[in-house]
């Protein structure tokens, strides 16, 4: 009895250490990926010095941040100032507990998985707001307040955007959501394209990425809430930010892209071999698929960041409340209707209806939502051409 209890604890500890270690390293290499993709988009090289093609650059960065001087503003609220990076980091790591990496490898599966993720991950914003306050400086304060407002407006939409998936999955457990997709052989992005789009937009805002990186906005607020932070405390913020990015990508992959499921599942390829090797491969290959999907979404985020300009604060709120919120509410109704027909219709009738319906929702919404009326056509550009 006690033996099996101890064994469970040891196994859990090993899993936690592996996940935390791998993710911390993954964060460093996400930053590397960001720099390389950015360099590629901007036709330059990116880090090239440390190691082959700068492959050791993230480690060198980490070491550098460790030995940098730690500066605290003299009138800062010292306790809070020290606490904030940790407050940001802890939720980001906690959420990793319910991310299913492969059928045999996840720290835990709880029946309210998704709810747990949203509940815990939104605590991170306390760190940002308090950092803004504790720095006792005006730019960080504005940045912190912006981040609070942003979190409030986008947390609602992101929560509503995944309801469609929950209707189809009939569960909040992350593992069950993936299993449902594997069973039926369809990824939920096919039935919920609008949901996926809304999720990605909200996730960008949640993780403070461009075009919604207003709490940081290095050109306006210098660096927003983290202006006064240096050395390891800064690194913690950085770690939390990129970890959040990985987490939202992992949730996106789980909910919409079939999680660990292989896109080649319809071929029914059996893993050869037997015994330990087979078990190992059966654990590993799904994890590879999962990581590839996470990487795909991460790449999407990076691509968007280096393509678009930044929105203004009031425009961000406008998009959140006036566009994304109504759209995600409509999407819930749509998902309900969809679910009704899901079992009844053959796939070649069902999918055209779903995608056509999605297109219709988008078109009608664009007509109704005033600020979207000339989304694609620049009226001003044609004005100019006639003027000269």
């Amino acid at each position, binding site marked *: 009895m006690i033996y099996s209890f101890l064994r469970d604890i040891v196994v859990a500890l090993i899993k936690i250490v592996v996940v935390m270690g791998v993710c911390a390293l993954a964060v460093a290499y996400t930053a590397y990926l960001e720099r390389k993709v950015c360099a590629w988009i*901007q036709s330059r090289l990116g880090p090239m010095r440390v190691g082959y093609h700068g492959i050791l650059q993230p480690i060198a960065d980490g070491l550098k941040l460790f030995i940098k001087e730690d500066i605290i503003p003299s009138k800062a609220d010292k306790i809070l100032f020290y606490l904030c990076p940790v407050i940001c980091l802890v939720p980001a790591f906690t959420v990793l507990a319910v991310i299913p990496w492969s059928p045999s490898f996840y720290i835990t599966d709880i029946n309210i998985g998704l709810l747990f993720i949203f509940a815990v991950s939104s605590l991170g914003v306390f760190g940002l707001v308090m950092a803004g306050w504790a720095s006792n400086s005006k730019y960080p304060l504005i940045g912190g307040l912006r981040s609070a407002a942003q979190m409030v407006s986008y947390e609602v939409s992101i929560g509503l955007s995944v309801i469609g998936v929950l209707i189809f999955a009939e569960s909040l457990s992350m593992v069950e959501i993936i299993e449902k997709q594997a069973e039926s052989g369809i990824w939920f992005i096919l039935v919920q394209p609008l949901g996926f789009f809304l999720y990605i937009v909200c996730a960008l805002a949640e993780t403070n990425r461009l075009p919604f990186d207003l709490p940081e906005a290095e*050109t306006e607020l210098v660096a927003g809430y983290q202006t006064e932070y240096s050395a390891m405390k800064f690194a913690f913020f950085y770690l939390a930010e990129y970890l959040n990015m990985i987490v939202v990508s992992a949730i996106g992959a789980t909910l919409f892209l079939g999680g660990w499921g292989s896109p080649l599942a319809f071929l029914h390829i059996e893993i050869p071999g037997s015994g330990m090797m087979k078990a190992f491969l059966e654990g590993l290959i799904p994890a590879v698929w999962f990581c590839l999907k996470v990487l795909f979404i991460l790449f999407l985020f990076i691509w968007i960041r280096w393509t678009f300009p930044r929105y203004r604060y009031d425009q961000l709120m406008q998009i959140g409340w006036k566009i994304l919120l109504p759209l995600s509410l409509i999407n819930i109704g749509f998902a309900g209707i969809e679910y009704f027909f899901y079992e009844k219709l053959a796939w070649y009738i069902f999918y055209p209806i779903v995608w056509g319906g999605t297109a219709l929702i988008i078109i009608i919404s664009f007509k109704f939502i005033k600020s979207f009326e000339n989304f694609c056509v620049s009226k001003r550009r044609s004005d100019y051409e006639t003027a*000269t």
Partner: protein
Amino acid sequence: MPEKIKNSESEDFKTEEIIVNMGPQHPSTHGVLRLILTLDGEVVKDCEVVIGYLHRGVEKLCEQRDYRQNIVYTDRLDYVASMSNNLAYVLAVEKLLGVEIPERAEYIRVICAELQRIASHLLWLGTHAMDIGAVTVFLYCFREREDILDLFEMLSGARLTYNYIHIGGVAADLPDGFVEKAKKFLDTFPAHIDEYEQLLSKNRMWLDRTVDIGVISGEDAIDLGLSGPSLRGSGVKWDVRKAEPYSIYDRFDFKVPIGSKGDTYDRYIVRLEEMRQSVKIVKDALSQIPDGEIMAKVPRIIKPPEGEVYRSIEAPKGELGFYIVSDGSDKPYRVKIRPPSFVNLESFKKMVQGHLVADVIAIIGTLDIVLGEVDR
């Protein structure tokens, strides 16, 4: 305390105003500009522009050196458009002297000035886009600007402060391979402008950030003395190259693009179109350039007759003028510079009031100021 609420200024919910110092070390003030912003939430109630952090007394220094030596000071005014500054000063001195410039030198000057306009606008576009968050455009612009700097390096050996246009002509003739290289650049460059436009001009986010931001009407723009693309963005068709032609600009066929509304987007479009027009001018100039001398016969020690002169040119940022008083000696008695950035900055307060903090940055970017020129 219900009484206190009743006695307060307004019955409405009111927030406290804060004063924020933006600059002089802020990353987006394009140099050492200091803005004292009075903010109500994020709305700019008032803005005070504080300048002088880069003041070097160039105008006074010019009185200590002779006419030829002063050219290097002009390089350091608008350090991203040194050729234009050289040209403006040299034209003023030449007007004072009354010398005739050889044809070939005139063409080379126009080529330099227009290439410099493109280079300056590229730097503006890059930094302006970066202020609004589009970092990729910044690096694209610098990629093309590099080609122009290479051309200038071939001409003068320098990449920033060229000291190339001299009194009476230019310092050196076009080196071998210059024309080919310039033509190659001009052939590829319009496609790059299209590339920037693809990223920005019809981008919903760019439109949201620039349309109706920092509006200034044509009347106000004239009252405040705006010049250059900032003035033309407001729909005023005024370009020194057309209004008071200097050098040989009357021989080229080019359009003066104007905006309609005077907002940030109009100024952006005007500058993009100006780059296209400059490409056209340089192409024409390269195909028409005659052989011959590059330097007029100017005495070794320049002693202009007594008198005063004002000559302005259409620099990339607006009207750049030099007012020189000569007492007949080999040094100017007085030099006064009319820098476009300094005068354009005057309209900043009017443009920024009522906008948000993020717009302050967009408006600084759209004015295209260089603090070296503001402070002199």
